[in-house]
């Protein structure tokens, strides 16, 4: 039986919770896969090596820097899950600021806090076999990833825009029909175009799509009433650095 491990670094637990949220599939998955290491769900700590490690969270402390290398050593396949692990997460906003000043805002004795200047994705430190995007990840995509790695197939996780899913779902485009700013055209699909389905513009929580043309979209978003500050913020929330310089407003 293949052995699965779930690891957590700096994160909200939401992505690993997604596995427990597969209520209909959890027990059958557990019948197919030995969930050997998953602290959030079990006090059994099966020793490595593992066939598949799911890693949540970004690397923000010196200890974690060492721990992720350990995880890589004991894992045949390593898949990062979520915006924290694939892009540094919302906590990567520290990258744009002075982390000591950040610590001083929150803690009276920032000197007690051991932290790195930047919140970095796992791929910045060790080779990663697949990155599953989203803040949080999509449940269906998580099951697909586990299935694909076990079956030795290429995961069906398209890198095209949210717009493709949006149209497949039959949403009227909120950008064209209501002038609501939407990052769908530059954001990778995976959520099923959730926000537009709720009459809200996509805010990019799955990170950039395969060939984002933010410059072209920004012209449109400005016309829809977003100013440069807003543009700067909207790209730098849950995937702070990955939309890249093209997101510079």
């Amino acid at each position, binding site marked *: 039986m293949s052995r699965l491990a779930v690891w957590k670094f*700096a994160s909200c637990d*939401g992505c690993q919770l997604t596995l427990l949220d597969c*209520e209909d599939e*959890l027990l059958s998955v557990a019948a197919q896969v030995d969930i050997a290491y*998953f*602290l*959030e769900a*079990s006090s059994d700590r099966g020793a490595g090596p593992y066939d598949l490690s799911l890693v949540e969270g970004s690397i923000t402390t010196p200890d974690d820097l060492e721990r992720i290398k350990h995880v890589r050593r004991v894992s045949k396949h390593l898949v990062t899950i979520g915006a924290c692990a694939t892009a540094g997460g919302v906590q990567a906003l520290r990258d744009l600021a002075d982390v000591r000043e950040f610590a001083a805002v*929150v803690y009276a004795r920032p000197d007690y806090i051991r932290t790195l200047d930047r*919140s970095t994705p796992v791929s910045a430190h060790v080779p990663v076999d697949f990155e599953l995007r989203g803040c949080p990840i999509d449940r269906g995509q998580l099951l697909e990833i586990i299935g694909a790695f076990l079956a030795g197939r290429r995961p069906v996780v398209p890198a095209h825009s949210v717009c493709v899913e949006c149209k497949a779902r039959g949403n009227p485009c909120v950008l064209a029909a209501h002038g609501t700013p939407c990052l769908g055209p530059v954001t990778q699909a995976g959520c099923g175009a959730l926000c537009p389905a709720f009459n809200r513009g996509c805010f990019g929580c799955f990170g950039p799509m395969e060939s984002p043309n933010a410059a072209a979209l920004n012209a449109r978003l400005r016309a829809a009433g977003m100013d440069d500050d807003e543009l700067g913020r909207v790209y730098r929330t849950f995937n702070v650095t990955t939309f890249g310089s093209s997101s510079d407003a």
Partner: protein
Amino acid sequence: MTHKTIRVGGLTRVEGEGALLVRAHDGRITDLQLRIYEPPRFFEALLRGRAFTEPPDITARICGICPVAYQMSACQALESICGVTVEGTLRDLRLLLYYGEWIESHALHIYLLHAPDFLGYPGGVAMAADHRPLVERGLALKKAGNELVAAIGGRAIHPINVRLGGFYRAPVDLTPIAERLRHALDAALATVEWVSGFDFPDVEHDYRFLALQHPAEYAILSGDVAVSDGTFFPVTEWPYHVVEEQVPHSTALHARLDGLPGYLTGPLARYALNAPQLSPLALRAAADAGLGRVCRNPFRSIVVRAVEIVHACEEALRLIDRYTPPDQPALPVTARPGVGHGASEAPRGALYHRYRIDDVGLIAEADIVPPTAQNQARIEADLHALLQPRLDLPVPELTELCERAIRNHDPCISCSAHFLDLHLHHD
């Protein structure tokens, strides 16, 4: 010699990362530290300079287990600055969303994290090998909660449909979810019966409870702050009463209430302060379970959680029954400078937010006090009281007991925006 050390490294079946270290000398505990090594994520700092509309989405990311709690406390704090109060159907929708999270979070804790302690399994999945129908019932209950959250919020984790003033889109028809909730209500009642039959260690602590209180309902979405010693104050006065301080061993801050450490927030507190306001079925279930008027045994918090699921299901059904879609999915909210406070009852206890908005609509200051930070000192006190008379037990047994005692409080370590491994040293 009589030095003894207990270490529990990497607490399991809690959300987030923590450890416990206990040192004892000559049969006396000399040091007890619940350590939270969840890496600090500096939410309060990174919120500064963001638009006043953003905290509901950003603070949701503090915790994937109870994002709705963050969204609700944030919305209310910010709305109060802008002079907006969300009432009527929109408030009902917020409550529904919140009940969904309660059902989901409590079911997760009871079935997958806590019950395995009583039945002797390492986790819910392992427990399913012998008790499959039970675990399936728990998962179905959890799913009902998640579906309620998704029906209103768009998805179970980090809902996307919440905004200041209400929602981006109001659901048209909630009757399909009602069907599921009726089954969930039965499952919740069965859960109370099941967990009330567990074998509980005979432990009681003299807790000082803190919970929100609302004149018209078992407080969850909003209320004033009530303390079991009779103190009562509006949320706006929170900063005068609750002061957070930093302890070296943890990235979580410890909170003191009116100068004293170690108060408790969460299900036991809510039950102690507000039980009469529980829904009829929940009240009856509590009575049948023999909870009494006040429950001071932390191990029995699992029963209170189950009762709260009953309440959440019953109330949610009532709200769905009277639901008709609102004319507008949200009230307009325009930024204005000022300071605002918001608090709500996360599944783990009171969650307080305070924001200051500057004159261009950006966040100038943010302060977040999550339940686990408030409870940390009290959990340490629980452990102290529990361990002191039992120090002679073998370390593996002690370790297990400690883990259980911690899990009683369902500490959500990710939540410690600013927040927890057992290391027990008998030196």
